[in-house]
């Protein structure tokens, strides 16, 4: 038994479990011990529950012993972003306004993983209501990048990416509205997938921007991401935007699908603002695919520069509406100073929400206001259509697109905290994909001179996750960056 189980992939651990070389209890204990040791420095979690997970791990061992393994993830620890509802468990969204809220029901994604035997190990930190790119907007704590504790882990799902990178969990779930899975995956050197809009049920995901939000997995390897997706993907009758389709066997298609593919490089993603060091790694990755026989085509996404404004109009409009329910009346924080209903609303919300959330609620309220709606919201939707068409045209020529995930590697805590606009720009390569509803994956493709991970983003056609994962896995096999771990 290796004493570093927590740095192994779920696939490897599954084999060890199957061969009875380790038990699920040993595995979760290894993760618990690891977390105890380094969590004071990383601060990826908002909550964990040792007793419960050890009991669950025991049950998993019993299933395996009885030959009743539920899935390849049976007994594997999974951390969940504290924005996904799980019955009896806190659901804070890293906001003071939901500080004491316990969800009375379970999200579909968590339920499916639990039904597959996975061990729900802890709630990870995030930017408040998933609004941010650094987890600095969490009302409770900053999470530190395991590769450099002075730096941010990316966001908003930075707790999840940091936990995977630091060996505090094997798999994690996050949510991605404008890059919130892919950017932290890139900055923490792990794999993160944002599935096609509608592939994974949003039921139980506290909404930030409903037309953009998607739940997706983080893991050390593409294969682990695939086996997690296998479990959480598929139609759910509790989500009207959930897609009705047969789900292919992702793990199998990774093995079968070896290319060569026709891969596009959108020129707009390599302009000003892209850090030269990051650029080198992305170009090397492109070069790798070329050398392996893939055809590389330069494509154009002419409306790429409209993505950030269209995104911030759409996402804030939806957020202003989605967050209206946190009003101090029923289950959220209620100001003790309030004297009437209006007062309850304004004081509870003023006390409960952080600055970035307030900024977006105010912006979104303005966007939807009578007299501005057509100029802002409606226009943003038209731009969204243009952006989607750009991708459709590009995908007539290529199977997938290769781009940087983030323009820079992880920046320092505090570096951009007072400059929301420069923070918004860290999602410049990920945002369009949400606007177009496409799947995107970030995989590690190198390390900077400061030993900070760099992520390659691969963008796929709608519901072509099988191919997307195959393309990512192809790179990973030749570049097993997951074997390198942060020294903590």
């Amino acid at each position, binding site marked *: 038994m290796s004493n570093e189980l927590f740095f192994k992939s779920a696939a490897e651990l599954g084999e060890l479990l199957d061969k009875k070389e380790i038990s699920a209890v040993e595995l979760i204990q290894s993760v618990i011990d690891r977390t105890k040791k380094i969590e004071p420095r990383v601060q990826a979690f908002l909550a964990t529950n040792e007793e419960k997970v050890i009991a669950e791990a025991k049950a998993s061992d019993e299933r395996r012993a009885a030959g009743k393994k539920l899935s390849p993830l049976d007994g594997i620890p999974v951390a969940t972003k504290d924005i*996904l*509802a799980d019955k009896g468990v806190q*659901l804070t*969204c890293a906001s003071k306004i*939901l500080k004491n*809220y316990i*969800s*009375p*029901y379970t*999200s579909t994604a968590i339920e499916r993983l639990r039904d597959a035997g996975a061990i729900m190990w802890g709630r990870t930190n995030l930017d408040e209501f998933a609004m941010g790119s650094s987890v600095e907007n969490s009302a409770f704590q900053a999470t530190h990048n395991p590769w450099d504790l002075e730096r941010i882990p990316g966001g908003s799902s930075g707790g999840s990416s940091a936990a995977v990178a630091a060996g505090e969990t094997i798999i994690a779930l996050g949510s991605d509205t404008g890059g919130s899975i892919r950017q932290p995956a890139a900055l923490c050197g792990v794999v993160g997938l944002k599935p096609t809009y509608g592939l994974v049920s*949003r*039921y*139980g*995901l*506290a*909404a930030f*921007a*409903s*037309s953009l939000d998607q739940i997706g997995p983080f893991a050390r390897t593409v294969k682990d991401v695939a086996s997690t997706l296998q479990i959480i993907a598929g139609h759910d*009758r*509790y*989500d*009207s*935007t959930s897609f009705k389709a047969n789900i292919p066997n992702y793990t199998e298609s990774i093995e079968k699908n070896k290319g060569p593919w026709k891969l596009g490089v959108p020129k707009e993603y390599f302009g000003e603002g892209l850090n030269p060091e990051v650029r080198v790694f992305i170009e090397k990755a492109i070069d790798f695919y070329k050398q392996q026989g893939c055809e590389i085509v330069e494509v154009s996404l002419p409306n790429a520069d409209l993505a950030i404004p269209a995104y911030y109009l759409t996402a804030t*409009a*939806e957020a*202003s*509406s989605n967050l*209206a*329910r946190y*009003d101090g*009346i*029923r*289950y959220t924080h209620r100001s003790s100073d309030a004297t009437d*209903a*209006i007062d309850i*609303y304004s004081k509870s919300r003023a006390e409960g929400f952080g600055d970035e959330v307030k900024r977006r609620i105010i912006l979104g*309220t303005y966007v*939807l*206001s*009578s007299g501005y*709606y057509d100029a802002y*919201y409606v226009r943003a939707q038209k731009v969204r259509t243009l952006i989607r068409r750009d991708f459709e045209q590009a995908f007539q020529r290529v199977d997938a697109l290769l781009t940087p995930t983030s323009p820079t590697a992880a920046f320092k805590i505090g570096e951009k905290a007072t400059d929301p606009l420069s923070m918004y720009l860290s999602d410049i390569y990920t945002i369009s994909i949400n606007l177009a509803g496409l799947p995107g994956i970030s995989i590690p493709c190198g390390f900077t001179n400061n030993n900070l991970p760099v992520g390659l983003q691969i963008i796929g056609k709608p519901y072509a996750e099988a191919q997307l994962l195959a393309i990512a896995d192809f790179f990973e096999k030749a570049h097993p960056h997951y074997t390198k771990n942060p020294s903590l």
Partner: protein
Amino acid sequence: MEYEAVIGLEVHVQLGTKTKLFTRVPYAYGAEPNTLTNSVVLGLPGALPVMNLQAIRDSIRVGLIFNCQIPEICKWDRKHYFYPDMPKNYQISQYDKPICQGGEVEIELPGSARNIMGKHRMVKLTRIHLEEDVGKLTHIGNESLVDYNRAGTPLIEIVTEPDMHNADEVFAFLKSLRMHLLYAGISDCDMEKGQMRCDANISVRPKGERKLGTKVELKNLNSISGVCNGVSFEIKRQIESLESGQRILQETRRWDAEGGITISMRSKEMAHDYRYFPDPDLMPVKISKEWRESIRAEQPELPFIKQERFFQQYDLPYSVTSVICPDKELSDYFEEAVSLYNQPKMIANFIVNELLRELSVAGTNGSLPLAESKVKPHHLASLAKLVDQSVISSQIAKEVFNEIFKTGQNPEKIVEDKDLKQNTDTSAIEKLCADAINNNPKAVAEFKSGKDNAINAIKGQVMKASQGKANPKIIDEILRKLLA
């Protein structure tokens, strides 16, 4: 100057679906507060709405009843305002693409007397849309309590054009709307239970003027009579304001039923900005022509059309059709009885005079439902046959009816068992007639002096002596012969 009022209504009607509009939670009036909820109803973080198909179907049915256009696509929008009865602080409604557009409601204005049919006319509809209801607030002293049981139940909002001019028309509109919706089984439309709610937009203008006056929205109209009284008051108030040289303010006013006045609630400047936008959690609904037409094909014959047919086919008077036709179950019941024995007038009279009266007093909690009545259509057909064939008198028929109502026995058997057959034995009747003439010298004298009605008193005596079984026609003949 003479003024004309212009009135448009916004009527909310709760659909009688089993479950709520966006989640499978039932709704029942009067349930223990906050028991009919779940994560979706309460708007908990992460909860998502899923459309109730039956609510869409019911809304289409309503649209087809009122000749609305049913567009191929309708969609969902969020209407925002903060209020504690609304769990999400937005209501899922339909803004610019409602499920029904246009349409009209046939109304019947009051006739010159109760038994005379009034004029019919059409009131134009603007649209009908589907939305979710909100919860209910109760204020007790300084505290407010909220019950979310009602939250999320399906409501249709029926919006009329400014197409009515007085309280009579408003009354007739609500009555017709209620009749049609009850008839089609869409809703019980009980205003006291909040199943039907009405706001009125009222303006006045000098008669002959085409331009509409400034409108006032009138709320808190909690009963049909409340609507009519509120509308009447508001028309009068506006006319008096204009006549005294004042301007009408665009505002929302509340009807105070106790005080019998309307009170200003808020001015136009304080109107909400609802910030409507398409609900990203719900897909637009596509209604194919095939689906729409299949729903149309199931539509029952509507009450006013049925009434026309009943006039033609059964030669029934308005006093009867106006009772039977608005009720589908009752008119089906009537037609079933007539199909068994073709005496429509007699059967209709049994229904209107006997059956409905007995049902109204038989229920433990209001009227006994027709379906629970022991009197079935075949009973009425048999009863009509017995009267028609002079086996029993119509007087005895009432007694037989009451017996059927109590026991559900066949009328033939009741007549047999109770020996209720009409006496047609002329010699026996002759004896009774002779006795009656001897015992009623005053009536006899009156009759002989030319007062024909006086014979009825003598007839009554004969009937009494025969215990109601003598054939009244035979009595009449014999009496006239004896008195000639």
